């Protein structure tokens, strides 16, 4: 080792140059969150959902409760043209006496007037031996020998006409008429007609529903375009987009606030129990077991009573309270388990040896290290809270009609999954996207908050 190996530094030189500015824990976390693209996009999605719920109605000014019974369960891609027709007048129908002959199916079957969604009127030639006729409607072309579809009704006493008003949609129908013998049994032959029903509305209705801006130009027989429903309509003809916005307010509130509160409660409870241990731990955990075992449904009713929620009023607040009061034990047990594990870790012992105060020990070591499981619990509690709300609303303990929530919209949509899938797909999509965003954001948050995880990405 020669003398040249060492040489005194010049005192003026900046030895401890910091390459980066000093950052606090939270600044650091924020920076790391920003670096995580998925998490950051998710954050925007969550913010976007909140904006959708609260600012959306400012731009989409359609009443979510306005029913349009002429346009129920309408998918967004359906034709928007509407024929203007005269107001509905009852129809007396047509009667005819039986002719001579030996045929058993009507020789002709015709529609009277326009076939529209308001009504389809059928008239047919009488059959010699018929005691009456049964009218069927099918949505696929009936093959010979096959069932004729939906029995709409039966006419007797020489009547040879039928008026169908039952939920006619703008589509092709096949109407069949079968004659009945004197015992009321059907003859084997039928007469079928293909009918293209067009969507129709009246002048009064078009004005009332605001289909057009210049009511003067409306006349019977003209065609107008009804306003677009970007997400279609539901079973009472209500605008799905407006309902999704309304539903977002309910579902996001219950889906975020309830899990947030009960997870926090669980974390506090669980860490106290886990950290202090001993008899207190025992008592606390037995109490948690007790709460888990309480039947949710009964206590939900109880809270509703305690809150004095009258009929027809929204049960959102008691639902929130019930969810928080009855759901925290899961999180508490989880956190306690983690704390028990962490308590035995070397760095905790080290920290304790250095004389760290208990509260700091909990805040600095315990809680951040349980963050991972806590965030997972939280992100998973979001959808389950949304569905609990749906279930409770369904049995009359949650939001009251006509208020919508995503969960209750799913509940309604599932029943028509096959014929009008849009009623299920859109609310389900909104729930999925929200849940996905919360999950990715939760992942990102965990990585950002947990100092040990910073190399993970």
């Amino acid at each position, binding site marked *: 080792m020669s003398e040249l190996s060492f040489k005194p530094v010049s005192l003026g030189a900046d030895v401890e140059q910091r390459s980066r500015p000093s950052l606090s824990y939270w600044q*650091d976390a924020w920076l790391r969150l920003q670096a995580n693209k998925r998490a950051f996009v998710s954050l925007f999605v969550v913010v976007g959902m909140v904006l959708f719920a609260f600012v959306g109605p400012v731009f989409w000014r359609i009443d979510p409760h306005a029913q349009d019974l*002429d346009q129920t369960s309408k998918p967004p891609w359906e034709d928007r043209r509407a024929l203007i027709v005269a107001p509905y007048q009852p129809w007396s129908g047509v009667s005819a006496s039986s002719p001579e002959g030996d045929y058993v199916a009507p020789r002709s079957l015709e529609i009277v007037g326009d076939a529209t969604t308001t009504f389809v009127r059928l008239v047919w030639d009488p059959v010699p031996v018929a005691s009456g006729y049964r009218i069927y409607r099918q949505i696929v072309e009936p093959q010979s020998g096959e069932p004729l579809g*939906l029995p709409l009704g039966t006419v007797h006493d020489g009547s040879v006409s039928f008026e169908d008003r039952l939920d006619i949609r703008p589509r092709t129908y096949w109407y069949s008429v079968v004659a009945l013998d004197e015992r009321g049994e059907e003859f084997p032959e039928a007469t079928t007609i293909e009918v293209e029903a067009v969507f129709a509305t009246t002048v009064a209705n078009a004005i009332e529903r605001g289909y057009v801006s210049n009511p003067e130009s409306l006349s019977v027989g003209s065609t107008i375009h009804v306003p677009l429903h970007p997400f279609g309509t539901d079973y*009472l003809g209500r605008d799905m987009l407006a309902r999704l916005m309304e539903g977002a307010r309910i579902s996001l509130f219950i889906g975020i606030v309830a899990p947030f509160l009960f997870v926090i409660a669980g974390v506090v409870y669980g860490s106290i129990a886990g950290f202090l241990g001993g008899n207190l731990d025992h008592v606390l955990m037995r109490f948690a077991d007790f709460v888990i075992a309480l039947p949710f449904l009964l206590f939900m009713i109880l809270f509703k009573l305690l809150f004095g929620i009258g009929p027809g009023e929204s049960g959102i607040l008691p639902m929130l309270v019930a969810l928080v009061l009855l759901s925290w034990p899961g999180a508490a047990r989880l956190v306690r388990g983690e704390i028990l594990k962490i308590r035995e870790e070397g760095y905790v012992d080290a920290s304790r040896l250095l004389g760290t105060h208990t509260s700091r020990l909990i805040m600095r070591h315990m809680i951040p290290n349980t963050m991972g499981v806590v965030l997972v619990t939280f992100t998973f509690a979001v959808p389950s809270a949304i569905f609990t709300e749906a279930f409770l609303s369904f049995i009359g303990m949650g939001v009251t009609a006509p208020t919508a929530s995503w969960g209750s919209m799913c509940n309604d949509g599932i029943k028509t999954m096959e*014929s009008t899938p849009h009623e299920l797909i859109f609310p389900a999509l909104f729930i999925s996207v929200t849940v996905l965003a919360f999950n990715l954001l939760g992942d990102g948050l965990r990585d950002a908050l947990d*100092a040990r995880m910073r*190399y993970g990405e």
Partner: protein
Amino acid sequence: MSDTLIPSSPPAKPFKEEVSRGSAWQLAKYALVGLLFFVVLLALLGLVTANSAAGTRSTSAVDYATNTITLTLSSEPPQLNSTRSTDMVSGMVLGHVMEGLLRFGPDNNLIPGIAESWELDELGGTFRIRSDAYWSNGTQVTAHDFVFAWQTAVNPETASQYAFILFPIKNGQRINEGELPIEELGARALDDFTLEVELEQATPYFLKLLAFFTYYPINKEFYLSTGGRYGADAEDLIYNGPFRIASWVHGASVRLEKNEYYWNRDETKLDAIDFAYILNDANAVLNLFATRKIVFAGLNSENLDRALKNRWRIQEHVDGSVFFLELNHRPDRLTSNYNLRKALQLVHDPAELVYKVMKLPGNLPGESIFPVWLRGVHGSFRDEYPGPRFVQDEVKAREHLAMALDELGLDELPPLMFLTGDNPVSNKQSEYYQRLYKEKLGIEVKIDKQIFKQRLAKMTSGDFDIVAAGWGPDYDDVLTFGDLFASWNANNRGRYENPELDKHVAIAQSSSDPVERMEAMDQVQKILHDDVAILVQYERGSVYVSDSRVKGVSRRAVGTDPDYTRAYIVQEENE
């Protein structure tokens, strides 16, 4: 600790190293162990359930070999002790395995059952019991069995909810109220085959009651031998009807087999009816039908299109019940105001409700509390007495509303409480009504959705303005609907009181002149309409799909429905 300050420098990625093959192998091994564990567990559980009785036998809809048809039940039959049954499912099962003095024939008319013949006048009569009627344990069905069953039903200790249906029999009501001993009931067995019945007062529809399940006979000796468990299990019952319960696995299945002791066994063509599933989810039932596991499935407006696309044979059936909005007539309620009720009536549109909201054929827009299928003097009651025509008129409705506000001294009407159940159908309807009254009259309606018993409690205590209610007939006579709104009827939950109406009900209860009775009932439907006691919504119908290989099934509004007692299987037609 300086490295914590370098968040944005490219991390060293220590953990994105190549996935260790070893670890992946290890995981694969664990997966295999997990799968093995699962398979073993599955096999074990399969063994356990196979040994217990709770299994669904793997059957197809129609089994030619065993001459069996397979069906679903919407719920477990809650009570098969006929003196205490109240519900439709129990009634349907009992209708297949028991027989009263009379039973329903294939054309839904009443035909002799256990009673061979009878003479009946205004205040009683005698029934001749057929001598070839046996219970499924081989003992004879006697007049004593009827006396015992009826005495048991009115016995206060039995606490039967349907005891009232026996009140036309002399002393029935007083026994049930504990004033007289059960032996005082006006039904006596003169000998094994002669049953004498005394009536409290003239009851013109008494014969029609006799096919009802509370009137079924019970063998006393057997009843006592069950030690209070009569009807609890298949072994705790004996049968005198076309079928007997061969096995009953609670919550899972009920299997009926032909009763070889039934007097009319030659008319029973099926060897077994297997209610192999207890299922009330409409889509699930339709799924079973789609895979040809069952012969019958009800449809609703949501799954109608599926049945149409599959080209299944769809039939309709009017189930006999009438649904209506009951208005609360208690004096402290807004709805006790006639003009308000009139306003509500004038914008009420049953046709729109049925065609645009309920969307199911079979339902008929309601016009009267008396459904179309009820018999009048000669033909249909509604053909003979069509009742008042009902017209919507928004302008008039608003006038009445204005008058109502005036009379009530209000500027604006407070919200009306609409009590409703928690099922999807009533959900839709209440939302529709809420919007209807808001749009047409500006009346705020609050929906009070309650689960079953809570709703009933509120209905009874009168905690509502409007409630959606329905009524299914107990017996085949106009009176089963006609006395609903008599001031003394406990089912009159809106407490509608009108002496005029009571007078007409009393006439129909006791008069033996059919024309006088029907005219009284016509007055009842006029009063209900003119005074707006209720708003009739619809007559319930249903549509269903059924297997074309099964024939001879009867559907009816009153009595066992659907009735498979005379059903038979035919060979497949063209499929």
